[in-house]
């Protein structure tokens, strides 16, 4: 009785179904166009292998950097008695809402050889980030790290601070408290944040092509290869798309416990 009362009316379910179709139809379309017979050949072509390799290297590198920098930042945002914390948090969120290509333009303004930081970097150390794999990694960190920071910060804030107080009263130093008390409790969030960050880094397009350029074998990651293969080598574009789709599904399956079973 009560269960049927809670059930949404049929019209709402119908609209919900339209929403589901909106997600499902493009994916079905993609799968319907893939030339499965040439899939292996397409994916083993030099261009595809290079793009796959670059994407793996850059996205894993970007994830490692995001974790290394993002964990301290998340801790600070969650626990430090910081003036302007909401400002810093907004700053961290900006890349999540900023069009990635604008992120690329911002990175250029800062890190190109004539940029704010890039100029001294090049003049003094001879370091150039544009058109390098490091540039691609930087672009990916810029757009993907917020996912890690936000996820982990929320977890730390949700963690009962009385455990930290208890650890401190027993003489544990702050490092020890973080490593032995907080971190084990928030590990699922750290893993989820890292996986989300990695997936976002893997899919990065706009900031990468703007900042790191499109050099085959050097900065041409999977999404760039997909976009550029779309004219002329459609089957390759579709094959690479399937790889990215498979990765996305893999991420969702990996995070299933976190997202799908909470309800």
């Amino acid at each position, binding site marked *: 009785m009560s269960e049927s009362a809670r059930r949404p009316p049929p019209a709402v379910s119908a609209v919900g179904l339209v929403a589901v179709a909106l997600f499902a139809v493009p994916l079905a379309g993609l799968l319907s166009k893939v030339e499965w017979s040439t899939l292996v050949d397409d994916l083993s072509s030099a261009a595809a292998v290079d793009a796959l390799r670059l994407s793996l290297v850059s996205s894993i590198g970007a994830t490692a950097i995001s974790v290394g920098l993002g964990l301290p930042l998340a801790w600070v945002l969650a626990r430090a008695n910081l003036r302007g914390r909401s400002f810093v948090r907004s700053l961290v969120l900006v890349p999540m809402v900023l069009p990635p290509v604008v992120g690329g*333009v911002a990175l250029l303004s800062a890190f190109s050889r004539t940029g704010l930081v890039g100029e001294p970097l090049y003049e003094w150390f001879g370091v150039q980030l544009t058109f390098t794999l490091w540039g691609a990694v930087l672009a990916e960190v810029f757009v993907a790290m917020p996912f890690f920071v936000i996820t982990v910060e929320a977890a730390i804030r949700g963690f009962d601070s009385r455990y930290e107080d208890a650890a401190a009263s027993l003489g544990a130093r702050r490092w020890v408290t973080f490593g032995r008390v907080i971190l084990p409790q928030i590990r699922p969030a750290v893993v989820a944040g890292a996986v989300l960050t990695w997936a976002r880094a893997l899919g990065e397009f706009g900031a990468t092509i703007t900042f790191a350029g499109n050099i085959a074998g050097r900065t041409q990651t999977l999404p760039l290869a997909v976009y550029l293969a779309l004219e002329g080598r459609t089957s390759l574009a579709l094959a690479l798309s399937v790889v990215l789709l498979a990765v996305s599904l893999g991420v969702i399956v990996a995070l299933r416990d976190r997202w799908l079973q909470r309800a």
Partner: protein
Amino acid sequence: MTPRSLAALLAAATLVALPACGDDTDSSESTDTTAAAEAATTTAAPELDGEIVVSAAASLTESFTELGEQFEAEHPGVTVTFNFDSSGTLATQIQSGAPADVFASADTTNMGKLADAGLLAGDAVTFARNRLAIVVKPGNPAGIDELDDLATAGIVSLCVETAPCGKYADQVLSAAGVVIPADKVTRGQNVKATLSAVADSDAVAGIVYTTDAQGADADTDEVEIPDADNALADYPIAAIKASAEPEAAAAFVEFVTGEAGQKVLSEAGFLQP
């Protein structure tokens, strides 16, 4: 990076992000009055209205934007919306059913694809020609004087092979026997992106059309490629058969190939067909 080139890049980014958001306001009411006014002042130009989408090569961005404004001024009932990208991208889009009323390509190959597929209304007409040029940083700090220098210059920006400017650049380089190492070539998805890699980023040099090299928003210097080594790009234009506004589309093609169109194009540095 100067504010102006940054603004241009941002504007380009916005264009990419917002495809074809033309003004949809139905101007049928105002058309009567303006057409009446026009009939009183000018000699009976056929009364046109509707919205047309013109898919044009990226190298035509400035001149076609200008022509679009002139065309709209002449035909107040017509709204012209542009879709600028590499001719390869545009041809692929039109082949997969993207709405377009007019196609202006930077090569005959991509136009030929549409002609072969039976997508054109009538034959394509060549309305302009273009040549290639090397672009370098202002003041040419890398000292690039000829195609040969590109082999050892550093990062060189070329268009993707599927864009006409990339195809012509590859032709010109291989004819001159210049080989740039693959890991030194960044490929722009169209000529504007290729130019921007030199103007706004750290590519040492690039190969673009002379019209782009001389364009107002090019923060670069031009190094000419001698005629003997250069390529000549033919720009054909045609109305698309599937157009819902065939008369307005035909009128735009006529406008571009006519006196007003040719004036704007030669001012932008295009050669006469």
